[in-house]
């Protein structure tokens, strides 16, 4: 009885922290429609900031608390809203969620950078450490009582704020109808900003309380908010009282597990699987159960997508696939072993990112668990008999694809954010209950046999690189085939309007299962092709987030985007491993890139393709591009240019000079001669430097390439600024419901006596 009471108090106090975190999530979700996955990370940053002030710089506790909670947190929240979140109006749920993933990655990177792990910080003191009072014969620390009081205070303040103040009424109005609020003179932007500031303060409060309870470590602080997600979902992301109740239940479950898991009646294993990982899985299980409640009804009301992608042509797709393999074969001979392995990792990640193209890009179904299927693929490949022959590979892929389809079933009635969270819950469950089992990974890793292909012996990293690149190309063609097929049209129809699709006779469930199975199958290929020892950490849920993020950054609607995202992820680890001084930059790089998504939701690959589209059909210019490439290649073959100079000059030629050619030719600007000279000079200087010796590490060369492309390409555009644009879609040029034709614009210009473009 005594024990029950003690653990009830502990559980309620833990629940109080979850409640504070969850209420912050609810506040931002309801006012801006963005589910902030980075909410926990905000609390983590606040806890570290408080530690810095209070324990490192010896600021008195009340002042440190005030500074953290009422100055820095609100500032951070408001800034996040202003800089990042405001650009996301009118984008898809996928993009909005990815941006918060990016923010999450950015904050973790930042914390790792500023506060590298160090045991001295673990002396994070509780409030009134050592003081306790006795309640019904049980000692309760002051810290617990304060935690409890904070939760109650938050509940009261939120209630008063939402129902009694002008700002609260405005907040609830924005929830109901943002546009209407604006038409009535409300200012939804200001309201959202306030909500984000408030939410950051709540996250900070919870973070500081939790850090006193646990230790000041990044991971537990960030991941413990999964509990808060579950509580917020129980409250349907809207209902604060239900959210508080959910938080209390979760706190109690966790606490009772601690109390009774050692008792003899408590099951230690089920179906031969140890249940040791179950504690960490409690919130995910609750999340799963809570998620089965919301039924997504068929709703009309179309989302206007800002992203756009075109139907890929067979000719360009096959050409791209063949040249990708050719390029990899050509350059793989020049790479050192470690660079080969990094590029191999890049292509593996590209396959994982590719698995998101049909699912997320085409069908609009968000998954946060792509690596989980890769992990299952690796396990299947390793455990199935046949030691890596093709039949084993096919069987492994099929098994995971079927599993993907089945696992998707409970998630299918969900959409948007609920679906994304349930895939996250699935990933954490698989990680805790399957990957972390001793039976699955003996001695921490497992050897995945190399795929045996008839007549070809693959035993070197170079062979595996070529194999993986080839697999990516073939799978990419498969995805293109899907896009052009009946299934592809159905997937897009599902994304664009589920209501119309269903009323035309589409079985939405079957279509979603197909999308999930296809995605799981492609993901499984990435794991089954690993051909080396793999460890469960590689397929952890937290590893999936950057993959999702960079796939969306690259452009999740296209195969090229997947390649871009995968290689960027690989390239990022190149940076970290080769240039130690840049290690910290590489930590925040994926996050920083992702945050820019708000301004460019179609992804980088689409943008690059857009730049090249101006060359389409202009055979004379394409001939110039081809001739230039040939000259660079010939100079290299004649040993005038070194291999690295070949790579750098080639990239500059294709990415900086080629897209600018039409501009230069079409421009009537007087400065076009200057631009030509600038481009030519840039190219010649690039070619004149021997990059093999000038910079001796690959990472630095990669950075040099990026900078050169930016300086030369954008510089030339700057010079010709006064010339005509390729396409100017300013609102002035767009008619009320369709684009004006050139004639109409001229007419309007004449009538209005203005120059529109």
């Amino acid at each position: 009885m005594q024990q029950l009471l003690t653990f009830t108090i502990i559980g309620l106090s833990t629940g109080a922290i979850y409640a504070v975190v969850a209420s912050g999530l609810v506040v931002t979700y309801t006012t801006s429609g963005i589910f902030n996955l980075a909410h926990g990370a905000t609390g983590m940053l606040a806890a570290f900031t408080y530690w810095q002030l209070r324990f490192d710089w010896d600021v008195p506790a009340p002042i440190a608390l005030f500074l953290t909670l009422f100055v820095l947190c609100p500032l951070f929240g408001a800034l996040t809203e202003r800089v990042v979140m405001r650009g996301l109006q009118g984008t898809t749920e996928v993009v909005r969620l990815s941006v918060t993933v990016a923010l999450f990655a950015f904050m973790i990177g930042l914390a790792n950078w500023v506060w590298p792990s160090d045991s001295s910080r673990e002396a994070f003191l509780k409030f009134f450490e050592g003081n306790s009072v006795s309640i019904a014969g049980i000692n309760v620390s002051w810290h617990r009582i304060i935690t409890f009081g904070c939760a109650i205070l938050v509940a009261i303040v939120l209630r008063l704020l939402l129902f009694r103040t002008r700002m609260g009424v405005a907040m609830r109005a924005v929830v109901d109808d943002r546009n209407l609020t604006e038409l009535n003179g409300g200012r939804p932007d200001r309201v959202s900003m306030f909500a984000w500031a408030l939410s950051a303060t709540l996250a900070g409060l919870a973070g500081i309380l939790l850090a006193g309870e646990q230790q000041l470590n990044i991971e537990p602080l960030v991941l413990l908010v999964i509990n808060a997600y579950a509580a917020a979902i129980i409250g349907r992301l809207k209902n604060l009282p239900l959210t508080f109740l959910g938080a209390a239940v979760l706190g109690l479950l966790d606490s009772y597990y601690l109390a009774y898991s050692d008792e003899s009646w408590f099951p230690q294993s089920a179906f031969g699987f140890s249940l040791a990982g179950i504690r960490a899985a409690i919130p995910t299980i609750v999340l799963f159960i809570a998620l089965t409640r919301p039924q997504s009804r068929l709703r009309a009301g179309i989302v206007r997508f800002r992203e756009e992608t075109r139907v890929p042509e067979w000719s360009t797709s096959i050409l791209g696939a063949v040249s990708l393999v050719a390029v990899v074969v050509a350059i793989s001979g020049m790479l050192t072993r470690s660079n080969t392995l990094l590029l191999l990792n890049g292509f593996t990640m590209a396959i994982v990112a590719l698995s998101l193209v049909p699912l997320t890009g085409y069908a609009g179904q968000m998954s946060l668990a792509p690596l989980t299927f890769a992990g299952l693929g690796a396990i299947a490949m390793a455990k199935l008999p046949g030691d890596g022959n093709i039949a084993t590979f096919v069987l492994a892929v099929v098994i995971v694809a079927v599993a993907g389809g089945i696992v998707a079933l409970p998630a299918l009635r969900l959409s948007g954010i609920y679906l994304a969270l349930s895939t996250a819950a699935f990933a954490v469950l698989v990680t805790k209950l399957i990957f972390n089992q001793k039976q699955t990974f003996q001695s921490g890793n497992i050897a995945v046999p190399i795929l045996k292909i008839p007549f070809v012996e693959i035993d070197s990293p170079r062979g595996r690189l070529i194999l993986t690149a080839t697999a990516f190309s073939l799978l990419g063609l498969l995805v293109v085939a899907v896009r052009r097929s009946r299934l592809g049209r159905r997937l897009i129809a599902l994304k664009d309007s589920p209501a119309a699709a269903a009323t035309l006779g589409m079985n939405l469930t079957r279509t979603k299962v197909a999308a999930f199975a296809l995605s799981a199958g492609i993901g499984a290929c990435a794991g089954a092709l690993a051909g080396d020892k793999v460890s469960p950490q590689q397929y952890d849920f937290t590893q999936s987030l950057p993959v999702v993020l960079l796939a969306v950054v690259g452009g999740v609607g296209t195969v090229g985007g997947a390649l871009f995202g995968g290689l960027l992820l690989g390239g990022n680890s190149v940076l970290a491993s080769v240039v130690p001084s840049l290690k910290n930059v590489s930590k925040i790089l994926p996050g920083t890139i992702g945050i820019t998504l708000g301004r460019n939701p179609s992804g980088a690959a689409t943008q690059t393709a857009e730049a090249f589209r101006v060359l389409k059909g202009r055979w004379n210019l394409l001939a110039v591009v081809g001739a230039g490439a040939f000259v660079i290649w010939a100079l290299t073959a004649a040993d005038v240019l070194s291999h690295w100079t070949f790579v750098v000059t080639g990239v500059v030629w294709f990415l900086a000079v080629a897209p600018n050619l039409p501009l230069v030719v079409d421009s009537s600007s007087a400065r076009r001669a200057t631009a030509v000279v600038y481009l030519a000079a840039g190219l010649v200087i690039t070619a004149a430097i021997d990059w093999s010796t000038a910079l001796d590490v690959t990472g630095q060369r990669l950075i040099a390439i990026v900078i050169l492309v930016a300086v030369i390409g954008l510089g030339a555009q700057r010079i010709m600024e006064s010339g005509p644009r390729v396409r100017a879609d300013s609102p002035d040029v767009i008619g009320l419901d369709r684009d004006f034709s050139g004639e109409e614009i001229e007419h309007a210009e004449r009538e209005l006596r203005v120059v529109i473009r």
Partner: protein
Amino acid sequence: MSLLYVDRVMVRFGGVTAVDGVNLLARAGEVTGLIGPNGAGKTTLFNVISGMQEPTGGSVSLDSVDITDLPAHKRAQRGMARTFQRLELFGSLSVRDNIKVAAELAALTNVNAIVDEMIERVGIADIADRPAGDLPTGSARLVEIARALATRPKLLLLDEPASGLDESESERLGDLLRTLAATGLGVLLVEHDMGLVMKVCDVIYVLDLGQIIAHGTPNEIQHDPKVLEAYLGAS
């Protein structure tokens, strides 16, 4: 013989009764009009018929088969197709592919021929290869009709197809509906354009505050005092 039979359908949202015991009958080969002031419950009734909204009570039958418990896609497979008041085109697909998806879903053979036929029929050949998301409202409505027709339905539900159309387009739409009805198709039309409704409908139902307050031929409806009251607020 009735194609669609709506029997005492009731829909409540919390305390609000949006549709209150509606009976409605639509025949093959006829255009049945459903009119009423804003907020009368027309779109809600459409959602019940097409399977997007579960009714609180009552039943819906198609071809004398009770379809009340069938999901939307099964109803479509039984020969029902609809358009939406707020457009629901597949914006990232071309106009042609929008129609193609529909024809494929109806498991028809010779899909391309049907797509061409529909494009021809509603007169959208000039925009067939544009992305559907870029279309002005008028053309988009026509694409929705072509898409619905491509499933070869027995019953076509049109939710305000003429809003956003200009006068000549609206007239062409009226002719199209008469032609379609002549081929044996049943059409249920929700529309605010009274000129169009009076011209093309064989029977008209008037819905107000969730209840059918009158039904009959256009001529009868135009002279019904209850209808005048509902529309003009005068007795």
